[in-house]
């Protein structure tokens, strides 16, 4: 994977008990490094399940972003398990991140909280 921050593709056996996140960024800057650390800390503290954060630099891998309809960076995608959730912004509002990630059904009221 295209990152020096978080390597190791997720192995098939592990995937059952793991959340996989992909963070799309533009360039690995100090700001981005801090964002990744903060995000990992947040997920570690708030998420009972193990979490993997992959980082994709859209500058070096633009086709990855295009394939997944990532138009804006930073974008955080919860790619596993379903449903796929895509969050856009500077990842500073941790409350909204957790709220968005907690939604896993079709509960319209919950979704409305985000709008």
């Amino acid at each position, binding site marked *: 994977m295209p990152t020096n921050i978080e390597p190791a593709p997720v192995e098939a056996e592990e995937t059952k008990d793991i959340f996989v996140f992909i963070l799309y960024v533009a360039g690995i800057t100090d700001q981005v490094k801090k964002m990744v650390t903060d995000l990992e800390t947040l997920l570690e503290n708030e998420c009972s399940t193990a979490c993997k954060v992959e980082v994709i630099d859209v500058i070096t891998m633009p086709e990855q972003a295009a394939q997944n309809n990532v138009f804006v960076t930073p974008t955080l995608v919860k790619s596993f398990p379903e449903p796929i959730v895509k969050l*856009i*912004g*500077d990842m500073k*509002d941790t409350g909204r991140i957790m709220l968005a990630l907690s939604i896993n059904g079709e509960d319209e009221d919950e979704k*409305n909280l*985000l*709008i």
Partner: protein
Amino acid sequence: MNSIAPFQWDVISGEHKRPAATCDILGLEISVFPSNEEAFLGLVLPSDRDRVHRRLATTTPDNPTYEIEYRICLRDGSQRSLIENGEVFFGENNSAEMVIGTISARVEETDISLDILKLNKIVNEQADAVVIIDIDGIIRFANPAAERIVNKKSEKLVGSQFGIPLTHDDVTEVQMLIPDKGLIYAEMHTVHTDWDGEPAQLVSFRDITERKHAEQELLESQQKYRSICYSATTVAIISIGADNNLTAWNLGAQRIFGYKEDDVLGQPITRFIPMRDWEPHEADLKRIAETGENHLFGKTIELRGQHKNGIEIPVELSLGVWHSNKGPQFSIVITDTTERKLAMAQLIQSSKLATLGEMATGLAHELNQPLNIIRMSSDTLTEVLKEDDIPSHDFLNKRLERISSQTQRAASIIDRMRVFGRTPQDHAMIISPRDAVFATSDMMKEQLRLCEIELALDVPETCPSVKGDLIQLEQVLLNLLTNARDAIEERATKTTAGENGPRCITITLKDAPATKTIELMVQDTGGGIPQNVVHKIFDPFLTTKEIGKGTGLGLSISYGIITDMGGTITAGNVDEGALFTVTLPAVNEDQQENPEMRLQVQ
């Protein structure tokens, strides 16, 4: 303008056919309609799409007609409501094979549509990219600017997963990778809105790349200059605001004044100036702040600073001013001149001692004279006392008085040398140039007489004072007189006897009230300065004298002393010799009244 457009739909191949004659219905171009079912469904609003897709489900061979109302989304982002009426033709196994029908626009919505069209125009002409997303983060609308930014047509964008902005009625800075433009910086605004009666978010992106780059460059240049200024350790670079309080303090300032940056920012600058210098400094800054004019800009100003430990430091500073919306700001570059002052003082001192050394021969002569007289007198006395006749009281008295007076004379010669050899005061004093001329003349008179050189003085009765050290000014005159003497002596050795010109040195002191200066001129008849060195006569180690005779430092040090006193010294040739002119600023009456200056004089 038609209100109905016919169509034919081959259900098996998915092909849509419309007569070429049909151009539009109520302003809607039929040519925008794709010619196959799948693409046609793409035109239909996503929320209606599923219903339209299943529009044949209710039809049977017994009931082959249907009517359905749906909305389509046009490329310009506008929506139109359409009514489709169709009749289905079934094949042998009761499966739909062909549909023939019409599409019409909903007439009653036309007026509203015109308003919507106006709004669409506004949104479409927006330079900002605008997308509307539903609660699932699906794009429901994208304007042309958004199409351009992601390089995708609206049809492709609508329905695709965009994501949920983490901001809410707020602004966030994001980046976007644009296919042929590279990375741009954008401000993402999100606003709550409705779309098809459902809550949605309007997300707009404003390209701020240029602003961002400008900001970045500004930041970098700020950091660069701050780093350059801050890390300079040999000079203090500080700045103060109009209120006299410090706004910047670098490592050099820390070294010179002993305070760290954190301890001094916001403090008044007077903390680093000895108390007795506060008043003139504050008056200066006040005047600059009020009038904007400043005689100090571009000049090096000498003053005293105060170290954290209370010790006064001689400093040199230059002042710059810049204007911010908080008023004038001053940038000040300060150099600690302690070491330079010390080195200069040492150089002056050693040169003085060298001058004394050079004068030793003359001194020996000078001292020999009274000593000879003393010896002769005492010899006479001894001889007379050996005889039986008792010498007269008058005779003895005369001899003893002579011994006493000559001892006095020798003592005064030694005294003069001792005074000349002492280290000068640190601070400038008010001195009389007349005193300097007379003292130097006293010192050299005898030596010059021995060399058969005439010393003429042209000194006015009164003359303004100057600021400086008396001994140093004497040293300059002494250097000039010694040079003049040597030049005359050397000239004599080069000419045959009898052709010897006049042997004369003139010291002239003049008051020049027009320029508020005094002039001191030393002219000799030594043949003048060789043309090839006249322009560098004040350079150190330059000497026109024989090897072993001069240090080459005399004039260089004289130059330093006079410059320090705020004056100038120039060299030139006149008639039969060299002319050195010293110009010194005269001290005006007010300054003479200054009690502090008085104190220093005392």
